[in-house]
């Protein structure tokens, strides 16, 4: 993977390389470099298969990490391209024209993280949620517990335990 990274670096300004395994590496890119790098990997290096596209919310740094995982089926290696974008008015170029299946991932990210992908087909259509009017639920600042308490009523007589405390008591009943 290091060899491929060196080769790519001749053409594109790349961030750090993290070699997770012999057949899996992650490369950090600038937002504007994503499309040319993807096209190069697809057309020249045989990374023809988009395995997944997802986001990680680094709330404390005010950034979203977008991970594009590409696979080279011929030599069974994977590259994860990591793009950091600002959480404020988060927007990213769509790649549905490169892989049509990316449109589904982008639609989900639009709904769950509030990341926009202009021109992606049906990107603003409801995907999983219907009539959702709160902040996108997979963002770290969306509090699932608070939402549940506000939205749903508790059945009388039901006792809710804090999972960590409950487990501690079960494992160490005498408080040791």
């Amino acid at each position, binding site marked *: 993977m290091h060899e491929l990274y060196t080769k790519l670096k001749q053409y594109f300004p790349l961030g750090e390389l993290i070699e997770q395994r012999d057949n899996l590496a992650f490369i950090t890119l600038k937002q504007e470099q994503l499309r040319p790098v993807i096209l190069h990997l697809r057309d020249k290096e045989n990374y023809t298969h988009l395995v997944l596209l997802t986001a990680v919310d680094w709330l404390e740094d005010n950034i979203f990490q977008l991970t594009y995982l590409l696979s080279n089926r011929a030599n069974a290696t994977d590259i*994860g391209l990591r793009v950091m974008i600002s959480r404020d008015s988060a927007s990213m170029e769509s790649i549905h024209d490169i*892989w049509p299946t990316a449109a589904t991932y982008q639609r989900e990210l639009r709904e769950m993280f509030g990341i926009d992908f202009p021109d992606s087909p049906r990107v603003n259509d409801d995907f999983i949620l219907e009539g959702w009017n709160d902040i996108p639920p997979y963002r770290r600042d969306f509090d*699932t517990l608070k939402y549940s308490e506000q939205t749903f009523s508790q059945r009388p007589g039901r006792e809710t335990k804090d999972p960590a405390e409950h487990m501690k008591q079960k494992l160490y009943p005498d408080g040791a």
Partner: protein
Amino acid sequence: MTYQPDRSQYPNKKADGSLDIDLKSGKFLKLWQGPQHPGITGNMSVELTVCGDEVVEGITHVGYLHRGFEKLMERRTFIQCFPIVCRICVPEPDFNEYCYAAAVEELAGIEAPEYANWIRTLILEMGRINSYLMYCGGQAGSFGMGVISQWTTYVRDLMLDRFEELTGARIYHMFILPGGVRDRLPEGFAQRMEETLCEIESTMSDVYNTMYCNAVFKKRSVGVGVIDIDLMDAYGVTGPNARAGGVAKDVRKDQPYLVYPELDFEPILGQDSDIYTRADIRRQDLLQSVDLVRQILAKMPEDGSLMAKIPSVMHWKIPRGETYIRGECSRGEYGYYLVTDGSGYPRRVNVRGPSYTHAMALLERMIVNLNIADVAGLMVSLHTYPPEIER
């Protein structure tokens, strides 16, 4: 005489590529297949626009089963996540357990014992058999052969008995956990498993004669629902759907995991990439899994360690990192993308199920120009499970 559809009434495309469908014209009809419909693969629906009895557009709708697993896991410790991941896929839950456990082990620097890996492989192959048995029943049912599903459900139930004696549970086993597995094989397990495998082989022989050799099944499935070879990469097609088109890819061979390098098997390939070929690939895969289970039981060590040493689950923190673990499930590539941030909770877990691409973009592409009566057959032939889409 071959049926020739009258395409003069078909909708034109607008400038943005969408179809110009005017329902008031009387030429088109909206038809919902699902979410409550015998010809739908689980909790999803397809919004069909039909012209006569031909589909001109199909849009997949999901969201009937969203339980927010990925978000739930961000509030749970690493060990608390393992009992819930299996619930992401009902018919073949064990892949979730394996992929999650392997991802945690890799980032935490833990290596599961060899004996545990043999048991993990055994469970995954047992799950594959069950998933294919369920598929066979569904595929036959989608073409009106209801009795096949009764036969396959019976033998699947026998395999559930084996799961129950091994794991204590029939559907959600919660048996593979980070570090290893929960228990060893019970006494006499191999003997009872052999009886079950023989029963499955006998039933599959009947299924072959009744379903695969049936003229109606062939007529309705040969040449229907062909996945063009050019679509394989564009739409991320994996597993039997890809192998039926001659794409010789099987994660068990390409990126071997667990004890697959010790087992003797070759990916089963087809050529025609239609519904019949996909069905036949899965039938052969099922029989191959029967053979793999026999190989595992014959080759695995008699005893060994079940669990690697893991930190106290109450204080288990994993350094910052990310990884992707994949495996070959009955429907294709199943994977877990795990990101950790040095705390005691996963930062992000993303589940990549094969149905995500097969039941959305691919199905919507393939459903066009299909006869309404073949929609169910096509959907089942892609072998999709909606819970993987909405996690």
